[in-house]
């Protein structure tokens, strides 16, 4: 197998850090010159993943899976302790797939870097040099929220993508609020895969209050109960934060101990107070991590949405027939593609996040 064949089949080709662009250019010229296969390189984003450990590996895999939906140059930087090799090592590879309709091989570029010890100091300048010009930059971080995710990179990120589905409760959510403040201050947009995962759930819930039921019962809510899995705890708080911001609920006051297994709160709203209960339990509740949301009004009306097994949600609402509806789960790669699109900038996220942070503060 020639170097070019290795490259377009996805194998990493070691290159001199000084000559990455030149090597890439040369490999592409060779790949497109032999006429065997029509190859197109495409790029709508620079996607930067930096870190180590399991979160880094998952983020790299997710970024690689998403390039078939949003072609991007991936800049994958593994930070390692000193020793065992040069400070900086670099490789390039191509991530190719057949374009819809077949025929043409559509390729995104991957640039891998390993920075050992003090080698990390070279990373910001390298990223600045290697980001495709005039193409936006996204920083993808999984495995917990790093509030310095964008600022430490030394590049002006256009978007930071995190996943509240990875958060471990309150501390991560607070870090996320700090990240939201930091990104807002410098014009970077924050997207959350967990928030996007909640999208269908929020739509189904909203649709319960379309005519004929109408929105009136929302003013009479007396109890809101939410059950979530451990990985969904932060996402659950976001869901409540969204309800609180949309329905004008007042500040949440804890009614007892608030801990890893949830808690209870009292909130004021238009016509009185409502009791909020969040229960966090072990088990599998799908990727969004929500088992059930149940709401009751002072008039005894009930509105509930609950997990009903794989790809199904059960809806129960006073005034509507109970039923199970299809709820296909989007793969994370699709969510990342959405996060890189227009819906990746959702002003509701910031307000929901701020209200969610009150619960866990």
């Amino acid at each position: 197998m020639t170097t070019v064949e290795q490259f377009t089949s996805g194998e990493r080709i070691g290159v001199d850090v000084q000559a990455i662009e030149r090597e890439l250019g040369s490999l592409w010229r060779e790949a497109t010159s032999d006429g065997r296969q029509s190859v197109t390189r495409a790029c709508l984003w620079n996607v930067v993943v930096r870190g180590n450990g399991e979160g880094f590996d998952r983020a790299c895999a997710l970024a690689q899976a998403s390039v078939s939906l949003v072609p991007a140059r991936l800049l994958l930087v593994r930070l390692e302790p000193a020793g065992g090799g040069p400070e900086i090592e670099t490789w390039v590879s191509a991530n190719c797939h057949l374009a819809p309709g077949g025929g043409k091989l559509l390729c995104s570029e991957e640039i891998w870097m390993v920075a050992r010890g003090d080698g990390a100091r070279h990373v910001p300048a390298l990223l600045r040099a290697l980001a495709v010009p005039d193409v936006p930059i996204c920083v993808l971080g999984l495995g917990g929220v790093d509030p310095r995710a964008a600022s430490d990179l030394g590049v002006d990120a256009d978007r930071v993508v995190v996943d509240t589905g990875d958060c471990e409760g309150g501390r991560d959510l607070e870090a996320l609020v700090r990240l939201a403040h930091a990104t807002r201050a410098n014009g970077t947009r924050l997207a959350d895969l967990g928030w996007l995962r909640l999208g269908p759930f929020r739509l189904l819930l909203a649709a319960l209050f379309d005519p004929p039921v109408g929105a009136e019962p929302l003013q009479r809510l007396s109890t809101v109960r939410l059950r979530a899995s451990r990985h969904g705890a932060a996402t659950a708080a976001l869901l409540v934060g969204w309800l609180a911001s949309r329905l004008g609920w007042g500040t949440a006051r804890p009614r007892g101990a608030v801990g890893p297994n949830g808690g209870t709160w009292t909130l004021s709203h238009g016509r009185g107070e409502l009791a909020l209960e969040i229960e966090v339990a072990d088990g599998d509740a799908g990727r969004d991590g929500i088992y059930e949301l149940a709401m009751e009004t002072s008039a005894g009306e009930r509105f509930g949405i609950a997990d009903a097994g794989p790809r199904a949600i059960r809806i129960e609402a006073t005034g509507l027939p109970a039923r199970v509806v299809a709820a296909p789960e989007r793969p994370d790669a699709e969510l990342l593609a959405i996060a890189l699109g227009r819906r990746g900038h959702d002003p509701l996220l910031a307000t929901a996040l701020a209200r969610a942070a009150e619960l866990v503060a």
Partner: protein
Amino acid sequence: MGIDELNPLRADLADERLPEPCTMVIFGASGDLTKRKLVPAIYSLAVDRLLPPSFAVVGFARRPIPDEDFRAQMREGCDRHARRRPVDDRLWPSIAQSIFYQQGNFDDLAAYRALGERLEQIDEARGIAGNRVFYLSVPPTNVPDILRNLGASGLVTRQPRDARPFQRVIVEKPFGVDLETARVLNQQVASVAEEHQIYRIDHYLGKETVQNLMVLRFANGIFEPLWNNHFVDHVQITGAESLGIEGRGNYFEQAGILRDMVQNHLFQIVSLTAMEPPISTGADDLRDEKVKVLKAMRPLAENEIDENVVRAQYTAGSIAGKQVPGYRAEPGVAADSVTETYVALRFFVDNWRWAGVPFYLRAGKGMPKKVTEVALVFKRAPHRLFARLGVTELDEPNVLAIRIQPDEGISLRFGSKVPGPTTEIHPVSMEFRYASSFGAEPPEAYERLLLDCALGDASLFIRGDEVEASWQWIGRIHQAWRAAGGRSVPTYEAGSWGPPEADALLERDGRRWRRP
């Protein structure tokens, strides 16, 4: 008041474009379109979570079919034709339970009353507040009966804008066969519903690239300043089909390519290409601008038809390695038929922007390949600087081509210096391809259009006055052809780009057709 204002949880979810719960009734549900396009589009929308949980489909047609059999047929259709195929077994049961079938004759008022009762049962069982979309997927001859009975049964009534529950009617083309029949149809429609309740569907408008014409023009700063008679030399619009008439001889003999493609699809593309910026993307603002273009198209006088219109018929030839028969050898076609399978037009849009810019439009069956595109051919640079150096000049003009189908995209041709010690200029093309840039396949046109109708967005549907304006312009050509009687029409070999007369149409102006 919109649904977003009625429901605080809906606010700011507009991007999600989730319609209110509603039922779509498909008249002519046993036909091919339902199985191949409509229900597969609904299935793909459901997979993409773009339908509300309380959505129902009711097929209505003459043949008695049990619900279960109808669902099985629709499942098969989705498996074969849905963009999101094959059908996901875990999703299908909940989608199937929202599909129903109601037997009835289109001219039987009692059948509509029975349909109304069935719809009320479905509303109650599924929590739908009476919102309804009636899709008329039937031959034009059935449309008057259906409209009359929808009105008489009270299933469709005149409604103010934003009325709830809503009643909307989707009408499939053809919208008449000439100006007179189009007016009659518009009157029939107006007798039961307001214009804003009517959604005349032309699937071309649901195509991503057609919509992108507006985005290209009005969301970018660089194109619109060039989009006028100061810079554009002429405009070429091509709608080519590689297929012949595929057994539709009886239909095509009555229609011809002018009715089949030009009056609807291609004139919509002309409108979007030539229109002024609308004041908003709202349905009426957009359609106001489109209809102005159709009204600004300079009418051809009877003695100008031969000079500006070429019609032709394909003869036997070869397309994609297969021998195809000539048009007159097709079943259902008269041996002495003069029906056109190809037409080329030269016309002007008499307004400030396009004064003096010829539009050349061609449409044909039996062409070498299927392609629809718009090309703006720009004027040459005012001064040929490099010619004075004695070097090879750029002979080809700059062209901005918008490919509507297939391989949707945009290309810009310009001259570039050939690398080397001499100043040789060669045309190169800068290409944007949807498939390359966005990876994912665009949604089917029917997905977009059905969703828009359920959302009450008529922007991509045709208004009654647009239909009449286009027939008014086309009508003069048909009139002239009728007056010419059985005069023979030019021919072209199937698999070619049309007759020599069509080339001459441009050559007289010192121009030539693009090779799309």
